[in-house]
């Protein structure tokens, strides 16, 4: 009788692994957990440290903005929507305002467009700095947080100087930007523009931002443990990401130059020289690196914009009571988190008939069940953090 040794060994291994099988455990991560960025809840089925299955549960922060938008006038809605992704509040307003302007066929003055662009890129810097700060913290390194948040505060100060709000600027008006920026009712009309010294301060702040990027690169990219924790972890292939609607830096890290700043024409990005940052592997490390590099590109755009900003009015002529003509339009923009769009359906009233808000984080984290299958518990945190989401942007 011939004994098939391979088969015997195989059978014995099966017997051992059956004996050692442990019951699965349900691990409830969140809604109150240090690393879920708010109230995301993951119901994970684990065997020891190995994750079989993850079910995200969202909706703890659902505020029903789509319904609320139906009972508000267009100017009132900007106050709502910059609370969607509060880490980059300013950038949320742009696609909505542009959607209304397209339906009304308003041509926005150049200067207002430049100010919008500068502030959008500053919001991008602020948002990416938060990510670059908090992601190492999730891996256990606390120090980069303080370095990055220190410089973010300078950027937020600049945004506050122009708009009056650090997080919720509510600065855009249909047809331009808020005309009495930086001044109260007593200030004269001529000075009701960008605050005094804004350009010099911005230039200085961008220098600081660029230098903190170098510091972060030293601190994080030079660290073997960070590389070991992030390289090859949570790989996201382009086709899968696209089918789930993943956008922004998360998709660019997988190697496609899918950047709506280049594709859409909601702001005059075609006049500026910047690179669309992509990486090759689509792992956690690439997602971190793409965002770091995007801070540098955003700083580049801001410097070019303050050099080339034209003078002129801040507001186009708009009727006193804003009524948007009947029609529908979808405007999307490259927000720090990804594609943010508003599908605006107007029936000719003072408020929209229906406003569909397409937020980036919502689609970005819908990939979690797919990407977290079979990883280890520490990798849940590493992968989840690398997707850079904000719960307000998920739940709306």
């Amino acid at each position: 009788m011939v004994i098939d040794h391979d088969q015997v060994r195989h059978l014995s291994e099966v017997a051992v692994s059956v004996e050692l099988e442990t019951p699965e455990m349900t691990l409830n991560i969140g809604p109150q957990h240090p690393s879920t960025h708010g109230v995301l809840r993951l119901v994970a089925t684990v065997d020891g440290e190995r994750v079989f299955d993850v079910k995200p549960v969202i909706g703890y922060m659902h505020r029903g903005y789509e319904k609320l938008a139906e009972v508000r006038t267009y100017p009132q809605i900007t106050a709502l929507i910059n609370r969607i992704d509060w880490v980059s509040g300013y950038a949320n307003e742009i696609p909505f305002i542009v959607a209304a302007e397209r339906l009304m066929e308003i041509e926005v003055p150049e200067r207002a467009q430049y100010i919008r662009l500068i502030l959008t890129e500053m919001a991008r810097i602020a948002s990416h700095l938060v990510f670059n700060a908090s992601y190492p913290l999730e891996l256990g390194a606390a120090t980069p947080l303080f370095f990055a948040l220190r410089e973010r505060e300078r950027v937020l100060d600049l945004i506050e100087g122009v708009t009056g709000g650090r997080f919720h600027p509510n600065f855009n008006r249909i047809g331009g930007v808020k005309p009495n920026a930086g001044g109260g009712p007593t200030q004269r009309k001529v000075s009701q523009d960008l605050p005094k010294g804004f350009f010099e301060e911005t230039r200085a702040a961008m220098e600081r931002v660029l230098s903190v990027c170098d510091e972060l690169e030293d601190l994080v990219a030079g660290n073997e443990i960070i590389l070991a924790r992030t390289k090859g972890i949570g790989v996201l292939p382009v086709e899968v990401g696209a089918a789930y609607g993943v956008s922004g830096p998360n998709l660019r890290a997988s190697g496609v130059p899918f950047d709506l700043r280049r594709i859409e024409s909601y702001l005059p990005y075609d006049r500026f020289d910047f690179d669309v940052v992509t990486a090759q592997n689509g792992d956690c490390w690439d997602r971190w690196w793409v965002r770091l590099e995007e801070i540098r590109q955003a700083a580049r755009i801001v410097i070019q914009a303050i050099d080339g900003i034209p003078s002129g009015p801040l507001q186009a002529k708009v009727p006193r009571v804003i009524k948007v003509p009947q029609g529908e339009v979808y405007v999307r923009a490259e927000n720090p988190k990804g594609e943010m769009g508003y599908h605006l359906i107007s029936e000719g009233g003072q408020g929209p008939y229906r406003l569909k808000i397409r937020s980036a984080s919502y689609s970005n984290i819908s990939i979690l069940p797919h990407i977290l299958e079979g990883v280890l518990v520490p990798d849940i945190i590493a992968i989840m953090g690398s997707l850079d989401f904000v719960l307000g942007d998920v739940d709306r």
Partner: protein
Amino acid sequence: MTLLENFWVLVALKALVIAAVVPLTALVLGYAELKISAHMQSRIGPYFAGGRWGWAQLIADGLKFFQKEDIIPDRADKAVFKMAPALVLMSTVALFVVIPFSPSLRVRDLDLGIFYVLAISSVSTIGVLMAGWSSGNKYSLMGGLRAAGQLIAYELPLVLAVVGAVIQAGTMSLNGIVEAQAAWGIPFVIPQFLGFVIFLIAVLAELTRIPFDMPIAESELVMGYVTEYSGFRFLFFFLAEYANMFAMSAIAATVFLGGYWAPGLSDAQLQYLGPIILVAKVFLLVFLFIWFRWTFPRLREDQLQSFAWKWLVPLSVLNIIATGIFKVVF
């Protein structure tokens, strides 16, 4: 004089001294950690408590812990839950027994001193496992199990790393090891550099400090095995962590850095200067630990395991072989 020679008086006195020294070291090291980490992160750190430099910050924190409600979860195994922090702190206190602060200032010089240290220091892991299991919390359980897995991984290199020094000294008594270094004229860190590095890495894992703080892993397991602890039970863990850091640094300083001995000092001078020299060496190591903590991120459990088994164990065995050959040849 006669009173001091009475065995029981002496025991009581020594117990009192250790009971005072353990929280004191924890306070000092905790404060050092707060201040050093703050300055590494462009912060000031504690500033107002105590009027100057926030020196009273940790005393205030400690008092706060005593005021807190002692919460025991409903599903917890209450007896084990209560015992765990005591066991962890006890094993730390027991470590202080053998640390020689000067040629004569010590509680007890055991012949198997270093062996005793290694054995006792693993008892705290039992306490951690008890805490994790009895809390009735899945995060705690995972933290406790990670600690147990970590124990198995690092305990071997920890033991193997000191074997080289023991071979060289020819004794396991901690005083004997210091005297051997004094006789040699150079601390063992120079001939046993590999052993020293392995020992430090293993000690970091034993102390569950970053980069090996997986049993606590705040961003993953909330607070690991201490998640459910509050009030003075949490304080026990806190005290044990820092006192343990002091004790393990003192052991490392004794075995590899010459302990209380410094070149050029007579035996009589060492009697008085010994404690200062030892504490200075301890602080050097503690600074290193704090520096690591605020620079490095956390490894993954499986990465620690493969690091321990694939690198630390073979390297420490190599170290032993090399030491043995040198001992025989020279």
